């Protein structure tokens, strides 16, 4: 298999979505005595091209999808999709972290489960924990929320809809007899 | 029907009580040995041998919960039926020199039927529980029952047939008669192999009859949380435990009666009460050995089979072994 260098990959993305790449960087990490290195790619892209970017990724190789990490930064929620490419051979893997930010007044993103079925659980998690609407998720029923979990609480948000108010405060150290 | 004196009836009743008691005690004791040996093979110390007794006494003081969905009288009746029927079989089994309390025409068929009763008790109890696990367990138990019956019957019929050829006028379908005429002495070389095959068949049926690994699909702890017995507690569970213990004795004694009926007292030129004791002890040793081979060892040495594998195993390979045994015995007789 022909492997593209991280630079090439970033270039490919830039070529295709020039306008919407907000920023990108390549990180080289080393490990061990021999200081072998491996690289990570961080790309942040606008929502409108996000799905296409994943699609592009799939044309390189079917990527391994790990998780979506979330970050509630005030007015926006930033989602980072962690992928990896070129697994299966020694030291060839490239981590690709594809980030995008959703404004809180329009928390919507296209589902990627049609491309990568394995992303389903993670997408549902995001939907549950942050109230992001995942458009095109095969099963849109309200599956993640427990029956008695309040509808307007999204535990991983840092604003007023977060779960801080639900924390069980009784469990404290000072419970002297 | 000959007239039986009142005295005889009284003796039988007392005898039955004594046998029931002894059967239960010895059964629990052997279960303790079984657990101990299994533990030792697994490199553990294992429970003390009297553990089954303690389990029993403990269960007797526990609360007896009848699930809401169950029909109480059936739910509570099932363990009693299982226990009573297994004890009844005991009354038909010869112990060493001592002939069984009840015996007679065709009692071996009776035993086969009685053997199904504890299983039926469990099945009915399982179904009566109204829990899905118990129902699946009960269905599996039924499938098992239907499967191991064919080889079991084959073994018994082979014995009866052989004896009827040699002694056409004896009351052949009776365990006492079979016990008195060891198969090994009646057959030629072909029949000898046949008899060994029959023994293998019976050895394969025994763990199924007792619902032990690899044939414990109905109770499969990891799948069905105890299966048939999930909903049972307290006294009822204790009774099922007793039934199980008695059944171990029943199945091992059956093997002994069919295949190893020999006694040693005459070898030692003993007679009277002493011979009785020696033979009884020898009998206990024999059933211990049989239990070790048929129950303890098999159950620790293999994995549980799935229910379809179980029924396949019984309907095909085990039955074929049984039929082969029967055929060899028939051939043996016809050729000679």
């Amino acid at each position: 298999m022909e492997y593209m260098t991280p630079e090439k990959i970033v270039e490919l993305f830039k070529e295709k979505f020039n306008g919407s790449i907000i920023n990108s960087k390549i990180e080289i990490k080393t490990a061990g005595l021999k200081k072998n290195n491996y690289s990570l790619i961080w790309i942040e892209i606008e929502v409108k091209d996000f799905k296409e970017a994943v699609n592009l990724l799939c044309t390189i190789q079917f990527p391994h999808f790990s998780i979506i990490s979330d970050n509630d930064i005030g007015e926006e929620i930033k989602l980072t999709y962690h992928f990896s490419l070129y697994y299966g051979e020694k030291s060839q893997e490239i981590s690709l972290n594809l980030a995008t930010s959703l404004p809180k007044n329009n928390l919507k993103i296209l589902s990627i489960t049609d491309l990568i079925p394995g992303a389903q659980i993670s997408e549902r998690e995001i939907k549950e924990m942050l109230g992001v609407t995942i458009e095109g998720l095969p099963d849109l029923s309200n599956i993640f929320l427990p029956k008695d979990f309040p509808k307007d609480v999204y535990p991983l948000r840092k604003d007023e809809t977060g779960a801080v108010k639900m924390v069980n405060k009784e469990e404290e150290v000072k419970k002297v007899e | 029907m000959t007239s039986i004196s009142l005295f005889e009836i009284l003796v039988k009743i007392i005898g039955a009580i004594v046998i029931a008691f002894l059967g239960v005690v010895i059964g629990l004791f052997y279960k303790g040995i079984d657990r101990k040996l299994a533990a030792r093979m697994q490199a553990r110390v294992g429970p003390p041998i009297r553990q089954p007794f303690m389990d029993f006494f403990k269960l007797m003081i526990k609360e007896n919960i009848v699930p809401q969905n169950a029909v109480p009288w059936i739910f509570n009746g099932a363990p009693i039926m299982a226990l009573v029927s297994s004890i009844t079989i005991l009354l038909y089994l010869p112990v060493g020199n001592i002939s069984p309390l009840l015996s007679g025409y065709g009692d071996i068929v009776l035993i086969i039927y009685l053997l199904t009763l504890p299983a039926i008790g469990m099945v009915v109890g399982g179904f009566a529980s109204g829990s899905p696990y118990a129902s699946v367990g009960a269905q599996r138990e039924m499938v098992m029952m239907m499967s191991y019956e064919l080889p079991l019957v084959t073994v018994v019929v082979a014995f009866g047939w052989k004896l009827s050829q040699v002694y056409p006028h004896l009351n052949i379908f009776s365990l006492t008669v079979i016990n008195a005429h060891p198969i090994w002495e009646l057959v030629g070389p072909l029949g000898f192999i046949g008899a060994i095959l029959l023994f293998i068949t019976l050895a394969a049926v025994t763990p199924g009859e007792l619902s032990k690994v690899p044939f414990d699909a109905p109770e499969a702890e990891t799948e069905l949380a105890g299966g048939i017995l999930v909903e049972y507690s307290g006294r009822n569970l204790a009774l099922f435990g007793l039934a199980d213990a008695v059944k171990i004795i029943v199945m091992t004694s059956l093997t002994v009666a069919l295949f190893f009926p020999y006694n040693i007292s005459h070898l030692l030129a003993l007679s009277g009460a002493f011979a009785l004791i020696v033979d009884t002890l020898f009998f206990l040793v024999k059933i211990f050995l049989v239990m070790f081979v048929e129950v303890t060892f098999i159950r620790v040495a293999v994995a549980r089979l799935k229910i379809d594998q179980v029924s396949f195993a019984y309907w095909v390979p085990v039955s074929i072994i049984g039929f082969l045994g029967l055929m060899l015995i028939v051939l043996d007789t016809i050729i000679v």
Partner: protein
Amino acid sequence: MSLSNHIPILIIAIPLLAAFLVPLINRINKKAAGILTALALSVSLILTIALAVKILTVGPQVYVFGAASPSLTLPSGLKFPIRIMLQIDAMSIFMGLITAVVSFLGAIYSLSFTKQYDGVDKYYSLLLLLTVGMFGMEFTGDIFNFFVFLEIASIASVALISFRGIDFGEPAEAGFKYMIVSSISALMVLFAIGIFYGQYDLLNFAALASVIKYSQLDKIALGLLIPVLAMKAGAVPMHMWTPDAYSEAPAPITMILVAASQASLYALFRVVFSLYNISLNALTVGWIIIVFGLLSMFIGVTMAIVQKDIKRLMAYHAVSQTGYMFLGVGVGLAVLANPEALKNYGITAMEGGIFHIMNHAMYKGLLFLTAGALFFRTGTRDLNKMGGLAHYMKYTTIFFIIGAAAIAGLPPFNGFASKLLIYESVYRFNPLLSIMAMVVSILTLASFVKVFHSAFLGPKLPQFKEVKETPRSMLFAMAVLSCIIIFFGLFPDLIVKNLVHPAVMSLIEQLQYTGTVLGGM
């Protein structure tokens, strides 16, 4: 010349008379029809028992119509009997007892059960006629009369099967099927009669038996009679009518139908043993009957296991159980020519087979009655729709358990007693036969455990909130059957020695049969 000499004809006449009286009485009082029927049948029952005692102590009895004395078999000058005569030996009275018990209990059960139907007068008339037909088939000594009674029974059966009305599709269809079966068999029987009459100018069983030459024609007649009677008895592969007929008929009728099919079985044995006996190739015919039996056993039970209609399921079990009777009797027949084997196990096998007839009538009757009770209360026969009924119908549950245990051959119920006789004799003939018989028993057991589970166990279902225990008359009928089942199961020796053994002997000893009629000819 005491009245007791006339008992045989009274047993038949009383129900017949009642059958004509019922519609009249019904005009006066609606309830009276049932009561009259029950009364008539109870009288028949008592008379049958009395007759049985007499026959078993004194010997076979012959009753001749229109002779100077009812026991005068040979009219002056003639060497063979030409009159219509009833000819009752131990075997006939054995069957008669079954008929009497079953029809009496059927009538009692019907008292409550028919509340759901209109036109009970017709129902009871037909029931009585059916009984008359059955008694007739069993008691007659004349092959043509046999045909007549067979027809009476058949017509009554057809009507009863479709009794639940034309508006229900299935009963009518089942009745129609049975009608076809009956007419074909009637035709065949008539044809066989023709053969005999043409050859020997005789219609009397005994007389025929004494002269039969086992010619080519006789063989054809046998070839006609065996399948046809086996068909009426519901043996595989001519069993297809039974599931429909048994399941569509009202429950008490089903119970009587079971007995009626056994009357055909009786006729079959009569033909094979008393008519042909040694003159036929016993081994071959015996094997044919055994094969019929095995097939019935297996196909019946395997079909039963997959049924979800409770009565259909039981019907298939009836087929399967018939197999046991064939098996036992077949083995007996196969060794008929071998006195040593006959003595060693042939007789036992036959005892098993014959005993099983009675036992089957009892427990299968009981099972159909419990099924009827379930239908009566829940309105369905679909097992998947039932459940949790043991919560409401304790006694019915107990009766069902007894019936199921008996049919599966569990000790200490009657099924075990007769099956044991079969197993322990048949294996000496061929060990595989008894292995199969035992396995079928276990399958039967499994099947009934399944039924028990789906109908009686499980949570209380909301739709059955209103379900109550069955009415008393129905319980009574079931209770009586249960008692009989347990009694037979506990004291099988008593029954075998006093009832079954004589019946078997009367089949085997052909000479005795002909002798009673022909007076030592």
